């Protein structure tokens, strides 16, 4: 033992605080569609000709309010990039190994991050077509869309 650190104490601390985040009207409408209709909606900026999913009130590029320009998206999309997660952590949605992918849904311009299951991680490829599987039980989060599986 390093003698310079002898008798140097550590005082323990811990943070465990409750939080709740309001989704707002736009975000709530997106969640309700996922939960009740099993449908994925995006919002379109007509000025920039871009469809965002998940939705947002304003276009980050031109700052227009786009929250009412709803567009129904396909529940099928294409993997544009992915990683195989191989470490374990309390914050992770699945036990490793599992696949997190950027999936561009039909009709959307922004790819969305989600879990890909039903395939061995080694076999996942960029360009692969995947389809949404919705959660059986409502979570009232983005995990109402439970995961994607190869078509």
């Amino acid at each position, binding site marked *: 033992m390093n003698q310079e650190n002898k008798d140097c104490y550590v005082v323990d601390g811990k*943070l465990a*605080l409750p939080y709740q*985040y*309001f989704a*707002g009207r736009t*975000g709530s409408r997106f969640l309700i569609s996922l939960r009740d209709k099993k449908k994925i909606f995006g919002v379109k900026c007509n000025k920039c000709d871009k469809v965002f999913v998940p939705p947002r*009130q*304003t276009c980050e590029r031109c700052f227009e309010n786009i929250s009412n320009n709803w567009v129904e998206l396909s529940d099928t999309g294409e993997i544009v990039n992915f990683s195989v997660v191989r470490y374990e952590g309390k914050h992770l949605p699945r036990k490793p190994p599992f696949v997190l992918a950027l999936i561009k849904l039909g009709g959307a311009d922004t790819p969305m991050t989600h879990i890909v299951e039903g395939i061995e991680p080694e076999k996942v490829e960029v360009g692969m077509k995947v389809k949404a599987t919705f959660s059986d039980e409502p979570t009232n989060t983005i995990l109402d869309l439970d995961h994607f599986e190869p078509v």
Partner: protein
Amino acid sequence: MNKKHKKNRNVAIIGVGQTVYSSHREDVNQPEMIHEAVSLALKDAGLTMDDIDCVVHGNMELFEMVHQPDMWHTIGDGAYGKSAFRLTTGGTTGATLVSAADNLVASGMYDVVMAVGFEKLQEGHTTGGITNMADPLWTRHLQTGALTGATASYMIQEFGEERAKRAAMKHRIDMDKHAVLNPNSHRSFGLDYDQMDDLIKNSPQLAGELRLIHMCSQSDGACVVIMASEEKAKKLSNKPVWIRDHITIHREENFSTMFTYDMDERDPTTHRVAAERLFERNGIKDPVEYFNVFEMYDPSSWWGLDWLRDFFLLEGDEVLTMVESDDFKIGGKIPVNPSGGVTSANPIGATAMIRVAEAALQVRGDAGGHQVPGEVNHALASGFGGTYWTVLFMLEKNLDWQKGEQ
């Protein structure tokens, strides 16, 4: 110690935007709420985001537990692709944001800077967050967060129970009477002076003689202030409000040294030091005479009452006499918090900016129902944070103080 602070160039407030303050904003998420204040400030200044060179953004650490909220919030504040800074300095955050924006413009780095302060206290756990400002070695296990009875206790010792309690409650009711006039207020009860004895006795005690009625609320809301260089301000605005000077006085976060080592020889508070230095370097001999309005960060009525003597350099029981004589009310000698102040709304990361914004509106004559009567040429605004540190602002309607200053 008190070096002359000369700005590289003059800076004015040219736009102000505020959301309503409320405990019920389930209809908007954080960037959507901020967007409301941003839109109002841009409209007030007659600008679009294209005119904004830089955005400074801030709120309290830990309160909503979002790391780097400024990045999420670009979709609400329009910072995409622009210079942007995030600052978080506790309760003073809003005032620090204005200080920083003023410095950024005065330096010549940016011509038009937008400062954004917000809080959504309903989403988080305020006291949980605040208790973690205490140093984790010696204070965190033994403290009450933002709720402290120490000031009430000192004032009762100094002025006697009856007079001190009545003065604090009188001040509370004065502030509520102002809050009723401000449509953005989170809390305005419509209190009246005949309720004083009842409230002194029956309002629930939080810590010592600090009672629920004395304490600020937990609010949701956002405030935005747009600042510009003199050249730009004169082009863009017909009512620029000049930021004459501001001072920040910092200290250690420690209850043991916060009030005093020795009751007989109390150390000056950071408020007193800030006021003395700011007024001295600007040649202000009598702040009560000089200023036409003061927007003060007063998290509780006891603190508000105590701190008024620091900011106005009052001695003895002057502050009690003044509150008893209605001097701090709208229409009084030196109106304090015509907006209703912090006991009427406290979206913390925005709160200290609201003080500056409201002071600027008073100078412009645009405060609406809570506008103080008469010409407002000189305004004072304070921020408070941690367990004691201070940001203090002087605003002016005209640039005439600079004559002969060279």
